[in-house]
């Protein structure tokens, strides 16, 4: 079931319906995404939260069609109404440049043997046919826009001469140069220290509002997602297990996994006696057990949880994938039985 966040005649910026994907490893197909559905409207920010291996990066790559070579995809991925998987050649490249993808580790994602200027202007010069000098001017302006000082000097430098935080700003500026219609940010601040993190987040947020872009923000940090995004989606073992308005996540989340995540990072004004600890380790999508993928670690699991596969359904103001959601949460109290 798909959650509609806004209605209108225009198609949503991003729309995923029951997306599943497998990657070929050796002679087998291993699932990396099992069931992902969500909608993001223009100007909206959706945070996707999950632990390593939950499939959040793969989701972003599926949107931009950057999945590794031998991958099988089912379900639909629509960007601006277009089915992404039917695109090829020039249309595909145009689609990719419409989606601004910000990668996790800028040092690894920028070509080390070319200058910053070359990196930033490459797309403009080679595909959009902009003259080099003009492109450089635009690049310098973009750098200034993200708070980089002496941009002309930076353009002549090489990646290894810049710090991680600075490189990430370069990455963001470059993405914005391409005038994208949406931004997919895959853990953009994970490789940075905390102060730089908040600066980069601020820039992203500002840019999004200025240009009314759809933003998909991927992170393992629930708090971060809640702060930056309007809505938060939680992934586990290749599936979305909950979506909810960010402001409701802390008190109002209803999936046991989300509750555990929340409980592991108590807020300063909501102290807890003990941090929540979940037994076991995160499961790769391909190794998910029968029934509910989370049941092996869930404190509320019953026998039926191992047999029935839950669907993502609307519940209590958001969507939850859990067959026991009504039992666990009585409608009148916010406290579990």
């Amino acid at each position, binding site marked *: 079931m798909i959650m509609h966040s806004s209605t209108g005649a225009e198609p949503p910026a991003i729309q995923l319906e029951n997306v599943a994907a497998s990657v070929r490893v050796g002679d087998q197909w291993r699932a990396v995404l099992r069931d992902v559905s969500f909608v993001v409207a223009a100007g909206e920010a959706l945070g996707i939260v999950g632990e390593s291996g939950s499939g959040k990066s793969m989701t972003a790559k599926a949107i*931009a069609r*950057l999945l590794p070579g031998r991958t099988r995809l089912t379900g639909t991925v629509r960007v601006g109404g277009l089915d992404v998987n039917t695109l090829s050649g020039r249309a*595909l*490249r*145009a*689609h*990719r*440049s*419409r*989606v601004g*993808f910000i*990668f996790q*580790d800028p040092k*690894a*994602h*920028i*070509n*080390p*043997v*070319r200058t910053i200027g070359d990196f930033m202007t*490459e*797309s403009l010069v*080679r*595909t959009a046919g902009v003259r080099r000098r003009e492109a450089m001017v635009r690049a310098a302006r973009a750098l200034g826009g993200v708070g980089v000082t002496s941009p002309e000097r930076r353009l002549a430098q*090489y990646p*290894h*001469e810049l710090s991680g935080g600075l490189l990430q700003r370069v990455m963001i500026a*470059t993405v914005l140069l*391409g005038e994208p219609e949406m931004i997919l940010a895959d853990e953009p601040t994970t490789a940075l220290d905390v102060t730089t993190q908040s600066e980069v987040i601020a820039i992203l947020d500002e840019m999004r509002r200025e240009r009314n872009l759809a933003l998909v923000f991927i992170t393992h940090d629930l708090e971060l997602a809640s702060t930056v995004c309007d809505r938060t989606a939680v992934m586990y073992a290749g599936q979305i297990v909950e979506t909810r308005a960010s402001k409701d996540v802390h008190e109002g989340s209803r999936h046991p996994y989300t509750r555990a995540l929340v409980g592991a990072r108590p807020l300063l004004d909501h102290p807890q006696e003990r941090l929540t600890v979940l037994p076991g380790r995160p499961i790769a999508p391909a190794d998910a057990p029968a029934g509910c993928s989370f049941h092996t670690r869930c404190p509320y699991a019953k026998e039926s949880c191992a047999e029935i596969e839950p669907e993502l359904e609307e519940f209590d103001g958001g969507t939850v994938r859990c067959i026991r959601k009504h039992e666990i949460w009585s409608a009148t109290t916010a406290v579990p039985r």
Partner: protein
Amino acid sequence: MVRYLLQRALLFFGTLLISSFIVFSALYLMPGDPIGNLTGGRSLPPEAMEALRQRYHLDEPFLQRYLSWLGGLFRGDLGRSVIFNQDVASMLADKLTITLQLVGYAAVILTLAGIALGVIAGLKRGVADSIIVAFTSFLAAVPPYMAALLLLSVFAVGLGWFPAIGAGDAGERLIHLTLPAIALAASSLAIVARVTRVSIRAEANREHVQTAVSRGLPETEVVFRHILRNALMPIVTVVGVATASLLAISAVVEQAFSLDGVGAMLVQAALARDIAVVQAIALLFVFAFVSVNTLVDVLYVFLDPRLRTTKELA
């Protein structure tokens, strides 16, 4: 960067110096009287012997002789062949042309074909890759003289498409040198292709390539500007090493195709114990070898900007 270049220069001259010393002392390693060796056991009239003694400063201490020889080299005096009674330098002139053309031709083949095959195999998987890998394995196993004889047998004698002997006159040079050049390049080509393939594959998996793809750049752009460009360092290394070795291997191919080049001259001189010629040519080979290698090292600096700011090569 300056320090790096300085290191390379030092290595260059150091190697040349020591090599020249080894080449020179070889004469004195030979059993018997140096004069006897210089004349190759022939008996010459006393004036000629005296002239030889003077020419090679045989009355002077070893080190001084070495230095005189070195000095002579710088002046372009490569010694004199006792067998042909000619200055080595003038003997070399024509033969050098042939050898250089052969080596140049082979270098072009191994670079272009090797890199092309490697890029194709590296980027595509499946059938194309398997074929190329099998082909290069085969090539790598066949030593130049075998390749030469094989080509000779099949294409020259058997099919008659190419001449079998000699380097031909100016106009026909290309045709005459084709089979030898292929034979010379064959096994090196295989290695270049292999290294290129591995290097391209590794680079294609790098994250910055994904960035380029994510920006909607066309495939050719991505391949040339990001994959190949970054994979160049190991490729340049192997092309450099292969080219540097070409000169030494050329002797074998020249023998097989009866080409009148420097290599053939070297072999004849060695068999005839014509020391001066052997020394001069041996040193020439070493010089070429070391020069190419140093050139490759210098090229690194231009290929990888990270070398310009770090102090030493990792």
